[in-house]
């Protein structure tokens, strides 16, 4: 029961509600492994908006024909900015944690199709 992890909360410890286009990310806390990875400095975390995630979704779908889930669409969007720091011989790896056929209706609605 319960876990000790980073959570969206107010100063009294009441849990704040969230809103995300990605159902898998629409949660007030992260898994405790992420807290550990951040605290030990092994992982850096960045924020991506719903609109940027949709850009990532379109980018991979249009360029590779691979429909990513909305969760890794956040990573794709962030990576597309990050690669500008690297040379053409460098490789950047994205973990595509899920497929996007589950999300096409959400995306169609968000993009007004």
């Amino acid at each position: 029961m319960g876990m000790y992890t980073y959570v969206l909360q107010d100063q009294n410890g009441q849990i704040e509600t969230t809103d995300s286009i990605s159902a898998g990310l629409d949660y007030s806390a992260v898994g405790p492994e992420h807290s550990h990875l951040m605290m030990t400095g092994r992982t850096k975390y960045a924020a991506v908006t719903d609109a940027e995630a949709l850009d990532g979704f379109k980018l991979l779908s249009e360029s590779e024909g691979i429909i990513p889930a909305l969760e890794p669409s956040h990573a794709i969007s962030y990576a597309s900015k990050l690669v500008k720091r690297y040379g053409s011989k460098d490789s950047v790896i994205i973990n595509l944690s899920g497929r996007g056929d589950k999300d096409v209706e959400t995306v169609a609605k968000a993009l007004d199709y």
Partner: protein
Amino acid sequence: MVAYLTGGDPKPKIFLNNVVALAEGGADIIEIGIPFSDPIADGPVIQSSSQRSLAHGTTPRIVLEECREISGIYPEIPLVILTYYNPVLAMGLDHFMRKARDSGVSGVVVPDLPVEESGDYRAAAFKNGVDTIFLTAPNTSETRLVKIIRNSTGFLYLVSLFGVTGPRDSLSELALSSAKHVKNLSGGLPTAAGVGISRPEHVSALIRSGADGAIVGSALVRLVNENLGDPEETVEALKRKTMDLKAATRRNS
């Protein structure tokens, strides 16, 4: 007879009158809940009181302030705080326990804190002379039960069913057998059974089975929920209900 109400509900002023009704009705221990946004152990009745109280701006500090007022009026009635762990962590363990002690609180129940994770919490409580009331369920293993008993002070909270808080029409056999079983292991530690206990006959059956007390929450909070437009009727109903429940603890003595 342990009587529960959610702190600050429905409004601070009315809340204090409701607590007075519990005391006047004969409650032996008064348990005050700190309303929490994610009350995972609570059913719809206490959930609605928590949300109502939070909507009025109730904070843990306000509830502790209310406890200070209550213990000022009824210094002879032990006060217990029921809270989820996150508000305690947010305030800081030592700070919370110190404030609790200074507000006349005798003990704290934290339903989402497993005893295995409670070292710092127990240390802070012990330092400030606040009892740590842990919970057991009917399926708690004997090994864990012994550990929970060893780390509990004040009394032991027997969860009498599988599920969340909320009034039930009947009391399960499980509740009675578990009260008997735990009593045999608890040594000198008093036990009080809660969750789903709403009627005088539940209370008397539990006491007959060896529980030292019964905790009634939702059945009282429901009276608040049902009489929101009529604070005076709430007070009357709470007092009557508490008297009935208290009388049931005496029936077998």
